[in-house]
């Protein structure tokens, strides 16, 4: 088995290694360039599509918002934010977990509460996409 692997490595020539390394470098550069979204600075909370409040993300606090169906708890933890409790049935909003990048959003349709992060440079969100 090891002999076979060694044999298959032997057919890779000098120029091939050069191309392989170049290719890997390209992968790393492109991934860094395209997947490096700016960190958000502010949390915007929306109720019925109207902005309810704006909080800084640089704090550790849990906010309680009264929505259509009941209380939603939104937890801010130094730069990231999540739904920690919601009255909806499926809890999609909670399962989305933490978000921390600019223009990321979480929407809870049953309770008509949504949050989005602003700040940093404008970027593509899932709605635009």
């Amino acid at each position, binding site marked *: 088995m090891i002999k076979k692997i060694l044999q*298959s490595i032997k*057919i*890779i*020539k*000098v*120029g*091939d290694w*050069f*191309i*392989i390394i170049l*290719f*890997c470098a*390209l*992968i790393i550069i*492109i*991934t860094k360039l*395209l*997947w490096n979204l700016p960190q958000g600075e502010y949390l915007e909370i929306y109720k019925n599509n109207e902005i309810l409040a704006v909080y800084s993300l640089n704090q550790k606090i849990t906010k309680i918002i009264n929505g259509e169906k009941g209380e939603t708890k939104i937890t801010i933890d130094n730069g990231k934010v999540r739904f920690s409790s919601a009255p909806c049935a499926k809890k999609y909003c909670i399962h989305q977990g933490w978000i921390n990048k600019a223009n990321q959003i979480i929407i809870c349709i049953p309770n008509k509460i949504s949050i989005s992060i602003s700040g940093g440079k404008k970027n*593509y969100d899932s709605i*635009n*996409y």
Partner: protein
Amino acid sequence: MTLSTINITDRDHQIAKLSAIAVALSLVEFFFPSPIPGVKPGIANIIILYTIFKFDLRMGIWVSIIRVFVTSIILGSFLSPTFFLSLSGALFSLLSLIIFKNLSPKYFSLISFSLIASLAHIIGQFVIVRIWIIPHNGIFYLLPIFIVSAFIFGLVTALITNKLLQLNSKK
């Protein structure tokens, strides 16, 4: 009245046979679901790479273009977006191979050519997607996934083709 005759050479037979295998492999691939939507291994490229190294680049170009057209006609996607994606990928790959055909075989084996062609294939498809199918910069967010898969499948294709050429030269 003049009769025009078409001379069918051995070379034409060779191209037809290889194209048939390439089309068959494309169809096999079509019926297997891919784990990630949009990512396909492109096993027909083994045949095209094999053709280029066993015979020459001209023949590889023929097999590649015939494969794109025949596969799309069989699957009913001729002149649809899928067809143009496939065609632009193939054309960009072939173009890259034409550009880089003078790389010395002393230092570069078919692994290099396979990787260059697979990268060109992805670039070709993204050009079509960006200009025509989804004219939005948001699609570039997916580029890393496709480039990584191009690297993996380009390498695997090259290794399989290499094995095939070795087996063939032993006979």
